[in-house]
């Protein structure tokens, strides 16, 4: 009896924890759907009634919205496409071969994720400036690649490592070539891991702020995280529009994150990904 009431007590605390954690997100989304007078009210309206899409209309009509969506997608997709390939090659090398310098490479991959971008943005800016590549998506793409690569190598190493070598060897005994065994046995098994890692790279690049903020100065070249600042002017902030914009920016990331969270979480304590 006593044990049951303790359990019920924990459950109540648990539900409270859930409510406190989730409330900010609820508040963002519900504000996005509220009409202006419910937003600018001294007494908060807990549920938007009537629901309105006005804020979303405002948000997507802010100059450069579609432009910045395209920029974000261009940057992120290019980065992910190239770096997943490079990372996969390196991951295979680390997981399948013993070679001199392997440990040094692993240490480098782990350590390099710890270097704060905020510190590196100064030399990045100066170096790109001296070759006239500031304010170009190319510089951002190159930079983001280096940001996602170490993490991708690390996660993929785990996926490749978990596929028993015996499978490959059995295929080779049956007459497959080394490359054939790899393509027919390892690749299909590691494919879900590749997808999950690619999606996580997508999220990281999509969320990045400081590099894009420093490098991309003209509004036609900015990405969505930078675009969010356009709701704040000297006259104040358009909260409804900002919350709608924030919801739109967060949406693809949240959906993707929910898809791959389970597969990636294991590698996370050993990689440095912050949401």
């Amino acid at each position, binding site marked *: 009896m006593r044990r049951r009431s303790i359990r019920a007590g924990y459950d109540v605390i648990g539900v409270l924890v859930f409510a406190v954690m989730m409330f900010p997100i609820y508040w963002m989304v519900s504000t996005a759907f509220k009409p202006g007078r419910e937003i600018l009210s001294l007494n908060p309206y807990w549920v938007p009634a009537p629901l309105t899409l006005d804020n979303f209309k405002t948000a997507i009509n802010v100059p450069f919205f579609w432009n910045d969506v395209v920029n974000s997608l261009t940057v992120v997709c290019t980065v992910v496409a190239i770096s997943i390939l490079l990372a996969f090659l*390196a991951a295979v090398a680390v997981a399948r071969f013993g070679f001199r310098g392997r440990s040094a490479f692993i240490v480098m991959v782990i350590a390099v994720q710890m270097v704060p971008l905020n510190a590196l943005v100064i030399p990045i800016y100066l*170096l790109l400036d001296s070759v006239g590549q500031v304010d170009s998506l190319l510089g951002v793409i190159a930079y983001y690649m280096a940001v996602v*690569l170490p993490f991708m190598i690390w996660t993929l190493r785990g996926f490749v490592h978990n596929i028993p*070598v015996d499978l490959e060897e059995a295929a*080779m005994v049956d007459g497959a070539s080394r490359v054939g065994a790899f393509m027919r046995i390892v690749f299909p098994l590691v494919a879900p891991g590749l997808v999950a890692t690619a999606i996580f790279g997508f999220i990281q690049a999509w969320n990045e702020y400081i590099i894009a903020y420093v490098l991309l100065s003209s509004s036609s070249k900015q990405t969505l995280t930078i675009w969010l*600042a356009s709701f704040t002017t000297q006259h104040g902030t358009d909260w409804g529009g900002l919350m709608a914009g924030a919801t739109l920016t967060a949406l693809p990331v949240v959906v993707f994150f929910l898809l791959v969270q389970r597969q990636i979480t294991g590698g996370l304590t050993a990689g440095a990904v*912050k949401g």
Partner: protein
Amino acid sequence: MRAAGQISATLAPRKRIGAASFRRLIVRKGLPYALIAPALLVIAGVLGWPLVMLVSFSLQHYGLRQLFQHQGTFIGLQNYATILSDPQFGYTLRTTIVFTLVNVALSMFLATLIALLMERVSRFVRVLIGAGLVFVWATPVIPAINLWQWMFDYEFGVINWLLTRIGAGNYIHHNWFENPLQGFTVITVIVVWGAIPFLAIALNAALTQVPKDLVEAAEIDGAKPWQVFANVTVPVLRPTLLVLLSLSTIWDFGVFNQVWVLLNQRPSKDYFVMSVFSFQESFRVSQYGLGSAVAVVMIAILVLATFLYVRQTVRAVNEAG
């Protein structure tokens, strides 16, 4: 496990020893290097080179004039002398250290509590908490800062309304950012809220590694709950705790976005933490040499935490094989 190349080499039938097998040997030895080369080149070129240049820029006078000429003037350690004698740097360093300590302690403490709580609730509530954590974790940092900005808005913010309503004082039209201590409280709320999911989920996963029979045995022997926690649970959690501690330290010490975006890209001097100070010196005052020196100091301080993290991770990898 790792020496797949060697295994397949012994399995392969030995034919004739000659030019062909010598070529194969080269291919086999060279293959791993060829595989890591592209990634290594990108990382070295785009991360390594700037890192070297950061140190180099910190030894140069690099202002607007030098920016146009793309050429700084070497001045030795003078930038370091300048920042060390700057009272703003002292304030910044102290603020950043205190901020880091408070944030790391708070997020670790709360995350541990939540992880422990998740073990004690019913299945439904556990799934509920897990879903909440994942949602918060998934929320990108810039939209998250914007939403907290809105919640703490001085005029229509829901937090001011709530605090007034529950009788914590009169918070109507209360500006949280006039007083830096209150401002940093808001920043702490945002950082801790964002950090908890990853920490709690990682800790909860580690908690499942604690052997149940060991806990029961300790309980039967009359150990109190906190004794069980200190003597059975913590030793199992130690490697995870160490990794999470060093990661949190690295992240919180380098905090930038939360300050910069929250204060609409114009933080007052009171809000200068290391990365903001470095950014301000470089991109607002155009003293790139000074900014680089601050950044170098910041990285130097983080080396210890990084070392702990790398050592622990490499150890875990070696144990796993």
